[in-house]
C-alpha cells in the first residue's frame, strides 16, 4: 500500500536552517546538511530545502548546498527559492535534487510550470502556494487568496483556481502552505487542504501548522493530503520522525516502516 509521506522542511538563510512564525522572528536551528542527514537516518520520506532569501536577494540558489544534500541523503528532495528559468531548474536537478519547487515566480510567470514539466517531467515540478483566508466572494469562491513573497504580497488569485491551473499546466505535485496556520503548531488548515486535494488529480502536500502527530493524522484523514510537511515540531526536538510514524501507524495511517 502506498504510504503517506512525512517531509521535513528546512528553511535556509545564509547556510543556516531557520524557523519563524509567519515568516517572522526567525531563529537559527543549525547546519542544513547535518539536519538533512539526521532526518534521513530517522526515516523521513522526503525532504524540502528552501533557500528562503534567494528570491528576495535576486541571486541564484546555493547550488553547492544542493550538491552536499544530494551526497548526504539517498531519498527524494525538493529545492525551492529563486528558481526563475529552465536553466535554474536544470542546475538544481543536475546537482542531485529530485524536484524543483516554484512559488512566487510561477505566479509571476505561469508558463514556467509548463516549460519545466515538458523539459524534465511533471514529477519534477512542485508548485508551492501560500493561500491566506479571505471572505468568500465572486473573486475568491474558495475563501482563500494566493499570496507571494513570504506572504507579503496579495495576488487577487483564488487558491483553488490557481491549483487547478497549475495542475493543468503540468505541476506534478502541489504544496499547500496555509498562511494562517504557518508556524502556529496548532494543526493544519484541513478545509483548505481538502479543497485543493478534491480539486486536482495530482498529489497534495499539506504544509503549515504541524505541532503534534495527531495533526498529521487529521490532515491525512480529513484533509485528504498525500504527504505532510513538518518543521518546528521536529526542529525543536519535541518530536522525532519515528515517534510521529509510530503514532500515525497506531491510528491506522499507512506509513513507511522500513528504513
Amino acid at each position: 500500500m502506498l504510504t503517506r509521506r512525512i517531509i521535513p522542511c528546512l528553511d535556509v538563510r545564509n547556510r543556516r536552517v531557520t524557523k519563524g512564525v509567519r515568516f517572522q522572528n526567525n531563529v537559527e536551528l543549525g547546519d542544513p546538511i547535518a539536519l538533512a542527514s539526521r532526518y534521513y537516518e530517522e526515516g523521513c520520506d522526503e525532504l524540502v530545502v528552501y533557500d528562503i532569501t534567494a528570491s528576495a536577494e535576486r541571486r541564484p540558489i546555493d547550488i553547492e548546498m544542493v550538491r552536499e544534500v544530494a551526497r548526504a541523503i539517498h531519498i527524494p528532495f525538493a529545492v525551492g527559492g529563486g528558481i526563475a528559468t529552465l536553466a535554474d531548474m536544470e542546475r538544481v536537478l543536475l546537482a542531485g535534487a529530485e524536484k524543483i519547487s516554484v512559488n512566487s515566480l510561477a505566479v509571476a510567470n505561469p508558463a514556467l510550470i509548463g516549460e519545466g514539466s515538458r523539459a524534465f517531467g511533471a514529477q519534477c515540478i512542485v508548485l508551492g502556494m501560500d493561500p491566506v483566508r479571505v471572505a468568500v466572494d465572486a473573486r475568491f469562491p474558495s475563501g482563500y487568496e494566493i499570496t507571494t513573497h513570504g506572504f507579503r504580497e496579495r495576488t487577487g488569485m483564488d487558491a483553488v483556481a490557481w491549483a487547478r491551473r497549475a495542475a493543468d499546466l503540468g505541476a506534478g505535485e502541489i504544496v499547500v502552505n496555509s498562511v494562517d496556520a504557518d508556524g502556529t503548531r496548532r494543526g493544519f488548515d484541513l478545509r483548505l487542504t481538502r479543497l485543493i486535494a478534491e480539486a486536482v488529480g495530482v498529489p497534495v502536500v499539506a504544509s503549515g501548522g504541524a505541532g503534534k502527530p495527531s495533526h498529521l493524522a487529521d490532515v491525512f484523514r480529513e484533509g485528504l493530503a498525500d504527504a505532510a510537511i513538518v518543521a518546528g515540531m521536529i526542529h525543536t526536538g519535541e518530536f522525532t520522525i519515528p515517534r510521529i510514524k509510530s503514532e500515525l501507524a497506531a491510528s491506522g495511517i499507512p506509513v513507511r516502516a522500513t528504513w
Partner: protein
Amino acid sequence: MIVIVDYKAGNLTSVQLGFGALGLETRVTRDPAEIARAGRLVFPGVGAAGAAMRNLRELGLVAPLQAAAARGIPFLGICLGTQIVLGRSEEDGGTETLGLLPGQVRRFQPLVPTDKVPQIGWNSVAFRRPHPVLAGLASGSEFYFVHSYYPAPANETDVIGVTEYAGATFASLMGRGNIVAAQFHPEKSGRMGLQLLKNFSNWDGKC
C-alpha cells in the same frame, strides 16, 4: 566499472551518487561501443516511452543494449528503463520497446479519485521468490516509486516482487537470467535501495 546508460531520459546524478555512496565507480555514457563492451550495465530513465525509444534509436543504442543483455552481463533496469526492457508499452499510442523480456506496460486505471496517477511515494514490495539482488532485504520493504504506467510481464516466472496500487497488483521487480528490472528507484530508496544497488554490484548475473 558500472556503466550507466545516458539516453537523454532524465537525470542520472542520483544514480551515480547512490553507487558513489557505496564507494563504487560508475561511468555515464551514450557511446554505443562502450555500452556493447560493458561488464555491468545500469539502464535508468524517467519520462515517456515513445521519446525514450526515439532517443535510443537516434543514438544507435538499441542493438548495443540488446547485445549487452544477450552476453549475460548483469543488467539493471530502473523505472522507465524497466518498462523499456519489456516488448511493448501502451504509452504514446503504443510503442514497440526493447523486448529483452516478454510483456507489456499498462497504465494505472484508478478506481477512486484518491488513487492519484502518477503513483508518487513509498510502497512495499512483496518478494515472490529469492534473488541475489535482494540479499539482506526483507519481503515487504518499502521503496520509492514515481510512475503512471506499470510492467506486466508475460511470464509469471519473471516476477520477483509485486506491489499494489490503484486496484492493480503489478510486478515492481522483474528478472530472468542476467536481467533484473525495478519499477521503483533504488537510488532514491534510502538504505534499502542502496543495499539493492550493492547486491547488484556484487552479482555475477546468474541466478
